[in-house]
């Protein structure tokens, strides 16, 4: 709406030919007090939240992850490889829980959570495809497409 008004104003100015001639001289305008806009206040450098304080002021907890050592199960926390189970994880007490993934040859990846409010031992059961059949939500893997099957 405002853009339209602006366009109309331009058109009117163009019709009057105001740009081509010198404007009529008027009485010199009284000297007005010019309001000088204050310079913009620079933003401080500390606007973003402080990094999470991960110091173990409240002590630490030890979480033992127990898996049959013969499985050679790798424990990861996001990108971090925590090692092969059984392992002990030491974390600041009361820090965020850890969403861990345990992967072992011949087993389905297992996702579990370790809490950090107290020392704990987690005995983990790993599932092969065959073991997982009885789990809620189980769906067999989709069959591999036959090389002769028509492509969709």
């Amino acid at each position, binding site marked *: *709406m*405002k853009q339209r008004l602006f366009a109309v104003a331009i058109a009117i100015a163009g019709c009057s030919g105001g740009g081509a001639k010198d404007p009529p001289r008027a009485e010199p305008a009284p000297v007005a007090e010019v309001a000088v806009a204050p310079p*913009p*206040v620079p*933003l*401080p450098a*500390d*606007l*973003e*939240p*402080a*990094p*999470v304080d991960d110091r173990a002021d409240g002590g630490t907890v030890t979480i033992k992850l127990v898996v049959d050592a013969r499985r050679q199960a790798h424990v990861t*926390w*996001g*990108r*971090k490889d925590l090692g092969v189970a059984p392992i002990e994880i030491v974390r600041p007490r*009361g*820090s*965020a*829980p850890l*969403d861990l*993934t345990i992967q072992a040859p011949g087993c*389905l*990846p*297992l*996702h*579990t*959570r370790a*809490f950090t*409010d107290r020392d*704990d031992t*987690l005995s*983990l*059961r*790993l*599932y092969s495809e065959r073991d*997982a059949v009885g*789990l*809620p*939500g*189980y*769906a067999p*893997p989709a069959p591999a497409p036959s090389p002769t099957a028509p492509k969709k």
Partner: protein
Amino acid sequence: MASRGAPAVSAPVTRVAPAAPRPRPQPLPTADALPALPDLPPERRAIQIAGVAQNDSGQLPERQVDADAARARGLTVVDLSDGWAPAILDGASYRSVFVGLAADRGDGDGQPLASGERNYLELYGIPPALSVLRRRFLIDAAGACARAFDADTLLAVDQIRTWGASTEQKELARHQARAVRLRAALAAAGADSLQALAEVGDARTARDAREHLRFEAERLAFAEVEKRLACEGLMDARKHKPGAYDTEMRTAMLDFQQKQTVMDQADIKRATLEALARSPKENDFLALRRVLTERAMHAAGFIEDGSVGNSISDPAYPTYLGADGARHRVPDLATASLDATLNALGIATPDDAVAFFRRRTRDDFTWLKVAVRLPPPPEYYSRAMDLSVEIDRGDVWYDFPFDAAGVRQPQPRERFPQLTLYVKWHGERVPLVRWRTTVGGWRGELASDGQEYYRYKGSDIGPRVWRHIVTAPVWIPPATSPLGSMVKEKRVAGTYARVTNYDETGPGYMSAYGMVAAIHEEMRKGPDGARFADNGIRTHGSFDYPSLRGRFSHGCHRLYNQLAMRLFSFVLEHRRWRVTGPVAAGYRRAFFSKGEVFEMRLPNRGYYRELQPPIPVEVLEGRLKGTLTKPIAGYVPKPGVTYVSRRPPKASDTPEDKAGGGDTP
């Protein structure tokens, strides 16, 4: 029509209605002034503003005083630090997550937020920390966003209708077709404007003209919404198709609404338009007022918020008998405490707030407190108040909401459920707060045969007690819970991963029981003392804030999360209790999803406190509507559904089923 280019930043200056004049802060009374002590350790520091601005710089004579001395002087020390959390969270491990969420430092699991990510969780009961408000104020004070949109165009409509992608295209096409018809009608009628045509044309043409004008106004307003969301940094204009209410814009709108506590849920209704039309700084100021209200109420252990009547000036407003023999109105301590806190900070306007935040650094919010002369507590206050609760179920329909032909039958309600907290004082019950709550009703539920039925999930009536208050309660999902929502993708230690979803179970603000719950127990007195029975009903906070505007629960009485925390923090302040601590749940469930195994582990049910003695709760039957006087027991097949089983299975009555049970809790 909607803007087709990138949002303009050179839009005309916004004209907004001038703000009502606000009273200037009053100078600190001499009796409250404490000596300045600049070398105090952080935990003993509070600030006082000892007067009004002395010069044009707006610099206020602020000084640091001893917080303990302030308390001894009868002042209340209001915690403005980022480490603040409601008292009800003390002792619970979830407290640190709450603090991280409020300060935009962590997510709901306590993991660090990605750079630039923000939490907008006020509607979920987590007000932003003061350092977050400082950031908002100082960025918005530059004013660029306030000049980037036209408030008048936004307020020229009552709502902006929006649609899904395909319907939106159809509606735009219909609009174009209507425009063609109207051009022809204008020419035929010799009318000079659509307004004239709307008044003189035949009924259909007039209707078309009105609809066209309305649609045009909405599209113009829509373009301003786009500018507004982009300039506030909520919408990435590069990812948005101008003129379309696409995912990018919907997400931005939800963020905006949650930031401004508007409950329109991505619809663009009047409340949203009004919030959009306000300058960002005005919105920041409203947020500051909400945050300071919460901080002051918790600091003082107050609860009265003016909710027990329509207006405190109404002659029918509740009163209590004072020691002076006169009747006094139940005060609105929320408004009075906010005003006193703003005054103590020397803040009356958004610009005062900007000046306040400019004086502070981020590190100040590791300790900042202010000494405030709050209104004195009413005389019925004590450490052991005689509190009781009444829950009125409002209008109740037991009838099945479908007729024999499967057509839904209207079941209107005029009276909605309410929770009232009372104190007994001089032999009278004095209402302190009265808030909307929920009751149970007809709900869809997944039965043990894997099929969904209707079931009346009512709220028990009669006398009950609150004996246990549970902070950061955990909802244990029944075995019939669908698995669909039990896995989510989220950022874990530097990468995205699929993890077990603990949002609904808690502990957390998204938990089915909210951030705090009181268990309704039936107390039976016998020769061996009192025995208690838990029928699964709780009064609890809820993330599902829209449900408090007229939907049904599974039988529980929901409150907005922040009110639930205010209520139970107040109870802790004014009743005797003991800590039971985390109550073990030992829940562990493995399930399969997309080729992987997930374990859900819930070590405890939350952090318990036992009230000594319990608080009496009376649940009133309400006003029965319809023909039935008792609820139908068990499952009822849904109209139009073909069931495999001949008879529905037996319905479960565990406490967990009351809160969850397979659909939105």
